């Protein structure tokens, strides 16, 4: 699925971790149910692989849909297209489709199964908050994700983890059955079943953590290539500061309009924070700024 977005909020990361974990457990439960109703192992593996593949194949549509993003023409968003055109010329790559999500949270993401099916998206909040130069830096980061084929890499990584868990579960299950299931009493069977379930969850979690580590590494790689592409790491650093942490939380929405939406804004509901949090995980702002500072010294010092 899509993986890039410019965010580094602690709360967000916690929520993403929990969401990811919940997804993993959901997968395990679905697979357990399939197995326990007697579906053959081979078919279960095919179903799991098909799920992962469709997640990859339709990554652009899934990400665009979940972010409420729409593709835009050069007439609708001339500035955004101009910047992408210029960057693609610089990077000598095919221009991806360009999209905009009408939300106030500053964010951007790149998605699509291959560079020729790629879409890069920015939210309205991102464009409102950043200068043209900073916007260019963020888009360069996203284009780097496209060039690095990060959607494919991350899908394969998470798919491999998922399949590893599944295969180990099936292996354990069949050992248990071939070990003379008939000779055991009901209580032992339940315990064995529980143990198998726990072990496969542990394998899923480990692969999930590894996938997150890989994702953080890909983010730093995209920061680096993006910054080198525009030749100004400090501009990307300044963009990151402007859209993460405290500054990213201050809205552009008008109080009077918000007032109309939530009666008397007693519990003002700008729940945007939860919308963007499903996808990947990012290194901390400090780590990213540190890398960009070093790069700035190397390039322009």
């Amino acid at each position, binding site marked *: 699925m899509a993986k890039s977005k410019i965010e580094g909020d602690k709360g967000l990361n916690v929520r993403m971790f929990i969401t990811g974990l919940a997804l993993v457990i959901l997968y395990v439960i679905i697979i357990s149910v399939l197995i326990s109703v007697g579906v053959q192992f081979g078919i279960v593996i095919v179903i799991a692989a098909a799920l992962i593949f469709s997640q990859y194949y339709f990554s652009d549509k899934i990400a665009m849909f979940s972010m409420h993003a729409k593709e835009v023409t050069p007439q609708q968003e001339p500035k955004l297209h101009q910047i992408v055109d210029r960057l693609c010329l610089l990077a000598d790559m095919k221009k991806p489709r360009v999209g905009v999500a009408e939300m106030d949270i500053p964010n951007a993401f790149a998605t699509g199964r291959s560079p020729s099916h790629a879409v890069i998206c920015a939210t309205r909040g991102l464009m*409102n*908050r950043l200068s043209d130069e900073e916007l260019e830096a963020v888009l360069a980061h996203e284009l780097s994700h496209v060039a690095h084929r990060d959607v494919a890499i991350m899908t394969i990584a998470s798919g491999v983890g998922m399949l590893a868990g599944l295969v180990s579960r099936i292996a354990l299950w069949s050992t248990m059955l071939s070990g003379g299931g008939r000779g055991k009493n009901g209580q032992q069977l339940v315990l064995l079943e529980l143990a198998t379930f726990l072990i496969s969850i542990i394998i899923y979690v480990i692969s999930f953590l590894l996938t997150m580590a890989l994702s953080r590494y890909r983010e730093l790689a995209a920061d680096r290539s993006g910054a080198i592409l525009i030749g100004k790491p400090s501009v990307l650093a300044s963009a990151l500061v*402007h859209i993460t942490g*405290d*500054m990213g*939380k*201050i*809205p*552009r*929405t*008008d*109080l*009077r*309009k*918000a*007032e109309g939406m939530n*009666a*008397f*804004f*007693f519990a*003002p509901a*700008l729940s945007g*924070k939860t919308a963007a949090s499903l996808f990947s995980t990012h290194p901390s702002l400090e780590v990213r700024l540190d890398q960009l500072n070093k790069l700035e010294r190397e390039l322009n010092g």
Partner: protein
Amino acid sequence: MFGRTKQVAPKLDGLFALPSAALTLQTELDLVSSGNAGLCFKAGSGESSITTDDEVMQLLNFDDTTGTVKITTDDLGFKWLVVTDPELDGLVTRIHGANTTMVEHGLGPRLLCAVFGFVPKTPPGDGSVRLVYLLKQGTFYPFAPTGPSQRDNELELRVRSFIGDDLPMEKDLSRWMALWNLPVT
């Protein structure tokens, strides 16, 4: 319980902390009162007999020896009571008085916020800042617009860091909503 919003009486006490915070603003950021303040409220919609601007003005019964008071309507259809007075204390007193009177006459639910303008004392300074007071919450936050939909977050956070102890500051940054093109300078 269902679908009915509990009416919250405006919290006005926070307003009186403003003059001392203004001293800090002047010493630390070289910002002084612009002499303008505003009270934003929704136009009448029939639930009260007081609907026209004149009726509201009559109600408020201002003594206009030291400053001026007028009512304007903004692009979004909200009403603004705009007060001009060179003294910040005078602005605070008038805004507080207007609030109290409007609440007494059942207009409390219409009130949205109060805004006080601050400008650099020695131009060209760092840009001007409005301090917005959320009447339902009883909290302040800074708003420093720099264009039709741009605001200077750095300056806003700096203002918070200096006067955060003097004023009941809004802690939830996602409530620091913009007030684009407001009639208070």
